């Protein structure tokens, strides 16, 4: 099997951060937290938006920093890494490195702005979401090589986008539930997300699970991968469990048990991460180029 452990970790972690930074502004705009009780809707919504934005930035920044360090493990001569930006004209790998760097920069700037307690500007959040989208697009194209048939089809875009949305939804759910002194003071318990947020995260997870299953079907019959059936099973079962645990978290939130809901959302995110890692090992195992 094609062993690239550093790339398995790098792609999954970057997609998690990118998905979260794409979904965070959407979650804030849509007021995913739902209406609170006993708190003016505007105040509660604002508090929830900040909670999501801050949580996502505080997760995305270290995840992106770790991802960039992990990506260096894949290189034979890491000191030449700055030269990987020299071929933006035709190399999708060069473009991926540029946009991954920009995404990391946006995540760090957002985290610093949020850490100061003032909150990041909508422009900065928008720039982060744009960098996340560009990063996902370029990363997908890196693997869509015309000489690697298994990757040069629906598998790559479907698997990468599904992973980003699924893991991103998990991060947003945990970020929204995480207790925080000053945002809690704004709106109290009611500023915490309602069951709607978790139900939507579970829905995104279920939809991504279906997309992953379709992506695997699209890759058939594909190259024979040792242990491939076990990896595919682990991939889909762990993601299904993640969706189930998120639904359980939804029920806890409806019963106003926020700490319980947070624990379950964290477990769901861990299961989703494990499921995506299994799926990514299988993805790299499918590598087989035409010719010699």
């Amino acid at each position, binding site marked *: 099997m094609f062993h690239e452990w550093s790339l398995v970790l790098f792609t999954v972690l970057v997609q998690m951060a990118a998905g979260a930074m794409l979904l965070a502004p959407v979650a804030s705009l849509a007021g995913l937290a739902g209406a609170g009780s006993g708190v003016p809707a505007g105040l509660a919504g604002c508090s929830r938006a900040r909670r999501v934005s801050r949580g996502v930035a505080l997760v995305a920044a270290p995840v992106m920093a770790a991802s960039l360090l992990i990506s260096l493990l894949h*290189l034979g001569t890491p000191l030449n890494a700055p030269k990987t*930006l020299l*071929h933006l004209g035709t190399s999708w790998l060069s473009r991926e490195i540029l946009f991954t760097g920009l995404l990391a920069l946006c995540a760090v700037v957002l985290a610093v702005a949020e850490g100061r307690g003032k909150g990041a500007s909508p422009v900065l959040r928008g720039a982060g979401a744009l960098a996340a989208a560009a990063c996902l697009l370029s990363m997908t194209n890196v693997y869509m090589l*015309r000489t690697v048939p298994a990757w040069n089809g629906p598998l790559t875009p479907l698997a990468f986008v599904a992973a980003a949305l699924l893991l991103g939804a998990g991060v947003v759910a945990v970020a929204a539930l995480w207790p925080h002194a000053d945002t809690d003071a704004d709106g109290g318990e009611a500023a915490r997300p309602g069951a709607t947020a978790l139900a939507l995260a579970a829905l995104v997870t279920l939809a991504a699970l279906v997309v992953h299953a379709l992506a695997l079907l699209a890759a058939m019959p594909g190259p024979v991968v040792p242990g491939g059936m076990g990896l595919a099973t682990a991939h889909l079962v762990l993601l299904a469990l993640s969706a189930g645990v998120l639904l359980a978290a939804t029920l806890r939130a409806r019963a106003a048990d926020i700490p319980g809901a947070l624990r379950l959302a964290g477990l769901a995110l861990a299961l989703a991460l494990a499921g995506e890692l299994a799926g990514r090992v299988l993805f790299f195992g499918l590598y087989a180029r035409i010719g010699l």
Partner: protein
Amino acid sequence: MPMPARPAFLFDSRLCTGCKACMIACKDKNDLDPGVRWRRVTECTGGEWTRTAEGYRQNVFSYYLSVSCNHCEDPICVQSCPTTAMHQDGNGIVSVDPKKCVGCKYCSWSCPYGAPQYSERLGRMTKCDFCRDEIEAGRPPVCVAACPSRALQWGDLEALRGKLGQPMAVAPLPPVSATRPALFVTPHRDARPVGSTAGLKANPEEV
């Protein structure tokens, strides 16, 4: 022969005995590390024995392909390299600039000939440069010079096109359209067409 405008390899599969003198000459001249092979001789083997009323019959076949970098006209390795270390000069020769190579191996993922070879010792990609130094000194590439059966030749791409027509390929080579290689193959009588899975690589440990 002076440096052609665009050098190309010509391989006559009918003449190749699979002796691998070309591989060894290349490894020797370039001091290649164990496991690094800029030129590889693939043995494509297939067929079976079947029992009939008259006895056993066989359609067993085997033929060789000696392949290095083909210095393609549409080089996917050059296009995908993030650092521009993999580059093509005015003669169409593709080579690696070790000062720029980051050792990401992306070129070797994409090349359908497996031409870029990673050196663990150097932490960089390495590959055939068509023995530029030999050609500039008026000598043929060492792989060509070493071939005892004259199965491996070289010449100018356009001159060979005029003589032989467009390059063609046989299994297990990729289709010519993938990267437009500067490689002309004269097929063995048992050669299978591109895409055929009738033959297997009989010597995977050597290629």
